[in-house]
């Protein structure tokens, strides 16, 4: 399984994401934001956290319009897998690959700690290695993670079982405590918490490993 981790100026956790994917068995290549194409044969694109382009204008807005952004959108339209973590989630909403938007945290503070999350659906490659309703602990580190979607969009997300993770306790003002959502084909996942920072015993937790294992094993089966 071939994964590409996209790197923008200001990305961080991009190498953590690469390590987590490699440990799960993926063949990982880094892709620079100025590249117009993804590495040949890319199965999964991972968009990392950080502060791409300094969060100027809006978080993820400029990254979404970068040359590699068009390639990521084309990959998703072809039915390719895409994972966006933290700033990567913001980039995917700005691209229109995922519904809703991430706004400033309701408490206005940058939140940096480990959060308990509930796996809201196990019906996706990313969440299939978890039990539905399972509690997991992933670190969060964001200033703009307050998920917003209008009532019609929320009803659609609920009806189609596309809410992937919720915060076990209110964290940042997100509507319905949403921490991560799936695309309609269930192959694009965006989430604010960082599974790649809970993927090694040295991190103090390994709950994130199952997410990477799930998506990598999807390709071993096929």
């Amino acid at each position, binding site marked *: 399984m071939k994964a590409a981790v996209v790197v923008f100026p200001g990305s961080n956790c991009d190498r953590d994401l690469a390590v987590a994917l490699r440990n799960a068995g993926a063949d990982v290549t880094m892709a620079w934001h100025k590249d117009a194409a993804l590495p040949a044969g890319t199965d999964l694109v991972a968009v990392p956290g950080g502060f791409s382009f300094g969060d100027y*204008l*809006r978080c993820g*807005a*400029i990254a979404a*319009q970068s040359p590699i952004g068009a390639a990521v959108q084309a990959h998703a339209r072809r039915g390719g897998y895409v994972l966006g973590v933290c700033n990567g989630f913001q980039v995917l*909403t*700005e691209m229109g690959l995922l*519904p*809703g*938007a991430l*706004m*400033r*945290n*309701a*408490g*206005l503070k940058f939140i940096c700690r480990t959060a308990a999350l509930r796996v809201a659906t196990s019906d996706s490659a990313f969440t299939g290695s978890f039990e539905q309703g399972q509690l997991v602990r992933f670190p969060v580190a964001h200033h703009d993670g*307050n998920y*917003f*979607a*209008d009532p019609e969009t929320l009803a659609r997300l609920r009806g189609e079982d596309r809410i992937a993770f919720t915060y076990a306790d209110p964290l940042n*003002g997100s509507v319905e405590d949403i921490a991560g959502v799936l695309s309609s084909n269930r192959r694009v996942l965006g989430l604010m918490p960082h599974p790649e920072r809970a993927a090694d015993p040295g991190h103090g937790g390994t709950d994130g490993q199952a997410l990477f294992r799930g998506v990598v094993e999807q390709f071993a089966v096929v």
Partner: protein
Amino acid sequence: MKATVTVMLKNGVLDPQGEAVRRALGSLGFEGVEGVRQGKVIELDLSSLDRAAAETEVRAMCEKLLANTVIESYRIEIA
């Protein structure tokens, strides 16, 4: 030609920063501020001399980059 784009959060979208400013004004003794909405102003210097064409172009810029129409509305003034 100069275009001024004003981007605001849509009505109904909670504005935590505006709310913090409202509370701060209250604590400074300014009474009667019932609501604060914070947005941004973007000024563009355009080479175009055609007002209608400029407006069409700026509208496209707003839709593609300057505003996130999921949560924001925008207003364009051309002078």
